[in-house]
C-alpha cells in the first residue's frame, strides 16, 4: 500500500508532453489544458497525469535556479530602491 506512486518510466515517457500541454509554459492563444484534458489526449488516467505534472513542474529546473532567484531578487530590489529614492549608492549595498 502507501500513497499513489508514479512509475518513473511512465514519468520519463510522458513528462515533456505533459509539460508542453499544461499551464507551465504559456503561449499566447493557447490555454493550458487541465489534467483531465491532457489525460484524454494522451490516453492516460487523470491521476497519472496529475502526478506527472506535479513532479515535472518541480523537476524542470535544478536547485541552482533557486539560488539564481535569490541573487536576481537581491539585485533587482536594490536597483529599485536606488532609483526610487534617488540614492544610487544603494545599488552597491
Amino acid at each position: 500500500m502507501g500513497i499513489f506512486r508514479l512509475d518513473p518510466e511512465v514519468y520519463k515517457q510522458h513528462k515533456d508532453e505533459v509539460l508542453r500541454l499544461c499551464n507551465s509554459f504559456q503561449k499566447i492563444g493557447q490555454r493550458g489544458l487541465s489534467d483531465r484534458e491532457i489525460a484524454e489526449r494522451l490516453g492516460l488516467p487523470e491521476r497519472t497525469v496529475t502526478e506527472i505534472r506535479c513532479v515535472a513542474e518541480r523537476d524542470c529546473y535544478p536547485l541552482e535556479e533557486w539560488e539564481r532567484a535569490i541573487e536576481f531578487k537581491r539585485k533587482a530590489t536594490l536597483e529599485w530602491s536606488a532609483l526610487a529614492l534617488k540614492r544610487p549608492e544603494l545599488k552597491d549595498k
Partner: protein
Amino acid sequence: MSDAFPPDATRRLKTTALKAGAVVCGVADAAAFDKHAPQGHRPDDLLPGARSVVVVGGAQPRAGDWLATSPWVLQTMGTTDRIQSVGRKLAQYIESEFGYYGLYVPPGSAAGDTPFISFALAAELAGLGSRSLAGPILSREHGFLYWSIVITTAPFDVDPPEAEPACPAPPCREMWEREGTTPCLKICPASNGGCLEGRLENGRAVRTFYDAARCNTRVHTHWIGGFQKVLDETLNEPDKEKRKMLLYGDFFTRTLWAITYSSTNIAQCFECMRVCPAAHGLKEMK
C-alpha cells in the same frame, strides 16, 4: 426570512466587504467561467448550483514595502491572509443574512500547484481589474491587489468586465516607443534567464510567453519547491557533514521559516510588479 432575494442584497454585500477591509468588491456570473476555464475548474464544479462569484481585493503592499532594500521584506509581508479573512467573513454573511450557500475558495492548491479556481479570472470577470503583461491582475484605481473569492448560489447582481485595462501604463507605452521594451519585460526577460516575453501592439499589452516553472523558483524560492529541492539534494548527499551544511544552512532555515509561518501561499518575488507604474505608482513621501 422571506424567499424573495432582497433587491438591495448586492449593495449590502459590497458595503459589508468594504467595511471588513476589502479595497474593492465585485460579482461575476458563475456561468461566465465556462468560456474560459476547463471543466473541473469552474464555480459549478465546486459548488453545484453556483450562480455568482463574489470577489474581494485588497491587502496590497504599502509604499514603504515597495521601497525596502531587502527582497525578504516583501517576501514576508506579501501574504494573502488579510484579504482571505474578508472572503471567509463574506461567506458567513451570505449564509446567515440571505440563506444561500457561500463557499469560500481556499487559496491553496487542488493538485500540485494548480488552484481550485483561477482567482485572476474571477477578478477579471467581476470587473475588478485586468491581466497585466507581467501576469497579475491590476485594478485601474488601486494597482496590484491580493484576491479572495466566494462562490455562492445567491443571485447577486453581476458586474461588467473592466473596459480599459490598467496595463500598459502611459510610461510603459513611452518606454516601448523609446526602447522596444517595458519595465516588467526588461527586469525579467525570458530570453535572458527570466520568465516573460511580450510586446505592445496598438497600445495594448500582448504577452507571448510566460515560464511559470521558472517564475515558481522566484515566487516560491523559500517555499514548497525550495524545500523539496534541498531535501532531494540532502538525501542524495552521502557525506554526513555536508548534509548538515544543507539542512542547517540559510536556504533551508529560511524555507522552514516561510512554510511554517502561514497556511496560505506567500508570494516571494515582486520584481515585475515593483517596477510596474500601474501596480503601485511611486509615491514620494517624507
